[in-house]
């Protein structure tokens, strides 16, 4: 089989290898991990004819510069980050044929926060507990290939798949102001009416201090903390905790598995992908599902 080698001349802002996550080890404190916009990542693998749990590159706002050693097939989905092949702009959501020595780079972020790059074939990357997703904890030790740095290389064995497609139906919407649907969280009843009213009646800005573990929102909720101390309990992607400073945090795939802050609400599964495409500085509104 033909070995494809990608060499990263520039790593980009935060580029990681991700698949659909590390399921089943949350009972021993292992974060779920995995792509944040699952639909976009699945679309990318679908276009190149890979099984849906094949690793992809998750590219955040500023993309990498990649040189290919040989011909291969790729697809980019998710955020529009002005991808260019040898300095000519190319589009998202289509199968692209790469030739030997081609250079893929990215330019201005146009919409969305995370782009996904799929490459047809079998990715030769270290896995930990069954997943290639970059570990949020000790990544250098556990998943050394999955944290892209300047000079990193990735190896992929080209498959014989001829089942690549050129059409996808479902795309994650991108927005700078978004309304996401939530269901009440386990401690919802413990919050005052004033706090709940404020939570649902204001736009919340996603702060710069946000990452794959969670989005910290800038709003200081009215009403003050409830008067009970919580015993640590489970966290899932989409859980919205309210900290001691009375600011909401939306937890994402790399969050720790348990937490001790009261959980006011949970973003519903269907809205997690569009949430993942929100950039720091953009505005979120919540409504009850």
């Amino acid at each position, binding site marked *: 089989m033909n070995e494809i080698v990608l060499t990263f001349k520039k790593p980009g802002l935060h580029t990681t290898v991700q698949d659909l996550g590390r*399921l*089943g*080890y*949350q*009972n*021993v*404190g*292992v*974060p*779920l991990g995995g792509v944040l916009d699952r639909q976009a990542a699945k679309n990318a693998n679908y276009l190149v004819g890979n099984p849906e749990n094949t690793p992809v590159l998750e590219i955040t706002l500023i993309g990498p510069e990649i040189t290919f050693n040989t011909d291969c097939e790729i697809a980019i989905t998710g955020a529009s980050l002005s991808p260019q092949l040898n300095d000519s702009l190319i589009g998202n959501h289509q199968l692209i044929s790469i030739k030997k020595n081609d250079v893929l780079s990215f330019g201005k972020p146009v919409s969305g926060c995370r782009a996904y790059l799929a490459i047809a074939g079998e990715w030769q990357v270290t896995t930990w507990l069954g997943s290639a997703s970059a570990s949020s*904890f*000790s990544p250098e*030790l*556990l998943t050394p290939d999955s944290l892209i740095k300047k000079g990193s290389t990735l190896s992929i064995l080209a498959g014989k798949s001829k089942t690549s497609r050129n059409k996808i139906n479902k795309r994650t919407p991108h927005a700078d102001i978004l309304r996401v649907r939530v*269901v009440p*969280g*386990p401690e919802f009843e413990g919050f005052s009416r004033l706090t709940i009213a404020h939570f649902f009646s204001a736009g919340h800005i996603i702060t710069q201090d946000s990452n794959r573990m969670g989005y910290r929102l800038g709003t200081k909720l009215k009403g003050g903390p409830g008067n009970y101390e919580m*015993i*640590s*309990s*489970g*966290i*899932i992607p*989409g*859980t919205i905790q309210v900290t001691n400073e009375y600011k909401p945090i939306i937890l994402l795939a790399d969050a*720790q*598995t*348990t937490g001790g802050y009261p959980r006011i609400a*949970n*973003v*519903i*599964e*269907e809205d997690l992908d569009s949430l993942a495409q929100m950039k720091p500085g953009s505005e979120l509104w919540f409504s009850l599902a």
Partner: protein
Amino acid sequence: MKLTQYGSNSILIQLKEVIDPEVNETVSWLNSKLEMMPEIVYTIPAYNSVTAVFNPGKISFDVLKNRIKSWESKEKKNTISSKEQRSFRIPVCYEEKFAPDMEEVCSYTSLTSEQIISLHTSTPFKVYMIGFIPGFPYLGKLPDQLRCKRKENPRKQVPQGAVGLAGSQTGIYPAQAPGGWQLIGNSPVPPLNLAEQNPFLFRMGDTVRFYPISASEHSTIATGFSKGQITEKEFYE
């Protein structure tokens, strides 16, 4: 037992709002039953709760809820076999270089460091849950005299193996991480050992007893682990 929908595809089972060994055993029992169900994707057992994420293509919230309720009425929770109950004796070096917060704990508890070490090594602890970072055991409960507050300013880096106190809990850091626990010692036995096929030393429900060692013994055991000459089996009781 309170069963509520949590997010889109998950159920949260909440038991009595206390840190209590019996309540936690019920958590273990419920968790082991849930883990055996093919409809369950993953679970997060905690002190007094279990979060179970299910596959909505295979089971609905209501069916799952009713099934869990039926266990409660039909079965006693003595299904955890004794072979799953494991005990560990874990060495800890309490010497000054590993115990940066010993003085603070002494002044907070009005105990001497000898009394603190004696209380910490004479109490059998239970692993109530694993969380925070992979393999971190939440151990409890501390004797009342040993209870202490977390640090006002959490450390950016707590070293691997650090043994800390927080509230009525004690724990061992499996890897370097930020943290606000009061550090009174360090264990050379790694709770997360990547050389092992199952890298996680502790399971919920295990019993842990500590015993004091010198800095030179600490270094001998740590070297033994890094060379693969010692395994965690030597610390089973």
